[in-house]
Structure formats: structure tokens, C-alpha cells
């Protein structure tokens, strides 16, 4: 696994001063163990992240340099990540902790092992949502509820849906997936922390008098997938 600079900085608010960050690296005994090249990469990354997106010319995270190529070991990368998380904790009330971020990473790593359709695109979207949430609400300690994320992973692994969904987060950090065709043809799922999901499914019924049916329910993931399959509610190609 390659740990990139964006893994370290990507889920934290970008308002920390570079001087404070280098000071933290020094006091944690890390700075002296970094090569000049690695230090330059870290400095460039901080600088880039503080620029407005228009100046970096892209909505994507601006830096993906691998610190490994600059000779930084995995052990040292973990120390850097911990030091950065500690600095965020001290500087920004309620910033995401190292453990929370690790659990998020582990959950995404596990997700990638299932070979789920669109998995990398989904992970990329979740990472960008986490970043948006962290920057919008730096006081929110858990922008993504990892138990909800686990439920989403279980659902996608069972349902094997080929079509990519729209993805957002509820204000409480619950994962929300939606396959939208029109207001009359929509499948929405909100993944709850207790291992269940809230289903909202609308469909157009073409009868003599056309109507729109709306189904809503809360159920466990396995029965939910069975229900959706039984009722032909999964998006085409599943």
C-alpha cells in the first residue's frame, strides 16, 4: 500500500500554518529523520492545499506525491500522520483524530477487497465528501459515521450494483446513496449506524391511470437486498 501526502493531509482542515506543522515535526523528533526532498514535498503540499481551487486549476486534491519515493519508510509515514493529527487536535477543536481516520481508511481498504463495481470511484467520492465536511464543519469530530460506512459496504457487496450511485452524507455523517432517474423513479438508501438502512423507493406505475408508488422502510441489509431483488427495484445491470 502506498501512503501519499494526500492520505495524511486529505481529511484535515487546511488552515494550519506551515510553521506550526514543521515545529510539530521537529518536536516529535521526525524532522531530522526526513530527507530534504521529503520535507520539500510536505511544504509544497501544505502550500498547495492553502491555495483556492481555481489557483490549483483543479477540483481534485492538488498533490499526490508519494513520500515513499522520497525515501520515507512506512513507520515514519505513520509517525508523520499521527503528528499531523495531534497538531490538528491541538489547533482545531474537534478535528478528526488519528484513530478515527485510521478506522475510515481500514474500512475503505476492506471495501476495495470486495471487487465491487465502481469501488475506486466510490472511495474517491467518499474521501472528497470527508474533506468537504471537515472544511465546512471543522468542529465536527466524525464527518463520516464508520458504522454507516460498514453497512454501505455490506449492501454493495451483496447487491453488486453495476450503476454508480450519487453519494452524499447526512448532517450526522450517515452515508446516503441514490440511483436517480426521475422524481418518479428513484432508489434512495440511508445507512444507519445499527446495521440497517432506511429505504425510499419511488416508481412510476403505467396503468390506465398512471400513478407513482412510494415505498419506505427500515430493514437489515440482507433482507433489504432480498426485498429489492424480489421487487426488481435494483438499478439495471445488477
Amino acid at each position, binding site marked *: 500500500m502506498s501512503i501519499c501526502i494526500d492520505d495524511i493531509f486529505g481529511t484535515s482542515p487546511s488552515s494550519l500554518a506551515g510553521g506550526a506543522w514543521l515545529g510539530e515535526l521537529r518536536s516529535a523528533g521526525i524532522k531530522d529523520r526526513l530527507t530534504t526532498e521529503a520535507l520539500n514535498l510536505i511544504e509544497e503540499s501544505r502550500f498547495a492545499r492553502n491555495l483556492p481551487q481555481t489557483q490549483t486549476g483543479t477540483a481534485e486534491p492538488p498533490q499526490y506525491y508519494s513520500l515513499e519515493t522520497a525515501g520515507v519508510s512506512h513507520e515514519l509515514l505513520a509517525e508523520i500522520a499521527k503528528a499531523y493529527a495531534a497538531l490538528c487536535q491541538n489547533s482545531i477543536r474537534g478535528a478528526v483524530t488519528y484513530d478515527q481516520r485510521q478506522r475510515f481508511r481500514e474500512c475503505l481498504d476492506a471495501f476495495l477487497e470486495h471487487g465491487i463495481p465502481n469501488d475506486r470511484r466510490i472511495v474517491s467520492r467518499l474521501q472528497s465528501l470527508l474533506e468537504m465536511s471537515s472544511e*465546512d464543519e471543522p468542529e465536527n469530530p466524525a464527518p463520516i459515521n464508520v458504522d454507516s460506512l460498514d453497512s454501505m459496504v455490506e449492501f454493495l457487496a451483496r447487491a453488486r450494483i453495476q450503476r454508480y450511485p450519487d453519494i*452524499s*452524507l447526512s*448532517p450526522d455523517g450517515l452515508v446516503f446513496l441514490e440511483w*436517480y432517474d426521475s422524481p418518479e423513479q428513484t432508489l*434512495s438508501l440511508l445507512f444507519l449506524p445499527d446495521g440497517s438502512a432506511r429505504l*425510499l423507493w419511488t416508481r412510476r406505475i403505467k396503468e390506465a391511470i398512471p400513478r407513482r408508488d412510494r415505498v*419506505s422502510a427500515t430493514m437489515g441489509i440482507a433482507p433489504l437486498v432480498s426485498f429489492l431483488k424480489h421487487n426488481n427495484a435494483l438499478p439495471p445491470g445488477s
Partner: protein
Amino acid sequence: LPTLLPDSDSAARHCPKKHLSDDGQRIMATAFHLRQQRGEKELSVLWVEYFGRPTRGENIDYLRNELSRTLNVRSGDLLGIVGVEDARHRVSSELGKGIEFRRSPRGSTAHSRIVGMDCDAQYEIAAILAEQANLETYPAS
């Protein structure tokens, strides 16, 4: 000024980019979800007609100014407009629930709240409000 927004009027909800579809064009229902962890029971909106400008565009410009004073508005965020009468009628007829749009000046004098969402149909209400909001959207900045 009335306590309740008139049925003929509309409310604007600030929808940050994280509550939009991937292409940034469609408001998703999460933009109308309550923050249950914080015990939120009502949703903040702005009364569109509060400033009494002659055109929709001018009223929206005033709302943008109000938003930028009170919230962290980012490029790509949307304003979703919900008609009071349409929203109340749909929630009542499709879900058998009652919601109200109530003035609640706080920070902005146009600030209002959607009351009645804190019930067992809150996700369904949010879906209806998002559907209505997608009929009329504007950039939030």
C-alpha cells in the same frame, strides 16, 4: 409581518456542495435532513420574498448577500427554492403530516424555519422538499 410565511411565498435552503449529486446539479435529500445528534427539530431557510424586490432575481441577490454574511458559502453551493403551498400540500397529501414555514429572525431578518419535520416521516419529508427544491435552483454565491 406574519409569523407564518404566506402560502403564495417561497423559502430558500442553502445546500452545500456535499449535499449535491456528483455533477453538482441536483440537490439530494440529505440537504433537508435534521442534525439528530444535536437534537435539531427544525430546518433553517430564508424567506425569499422578505426583501420585497420586484423580481425573483433581485430577491435572490439579496438572499445571497444575507447568506454570505451569516454562513460559510462556497463556490458550487446551491440555493434550492421551495414553494410554501406546494411543499405543505405534498407533505400533507402524500404523507399525512403537517409542516409549517415559520419566521424566526436570527442573524438574518429573513431567517425562517421549517417546523414539523421531527417525526417518523422526516426522511420522506426531506425527499419531498429536495424534489421541490430541484425545480428551482440558483448558485448560492
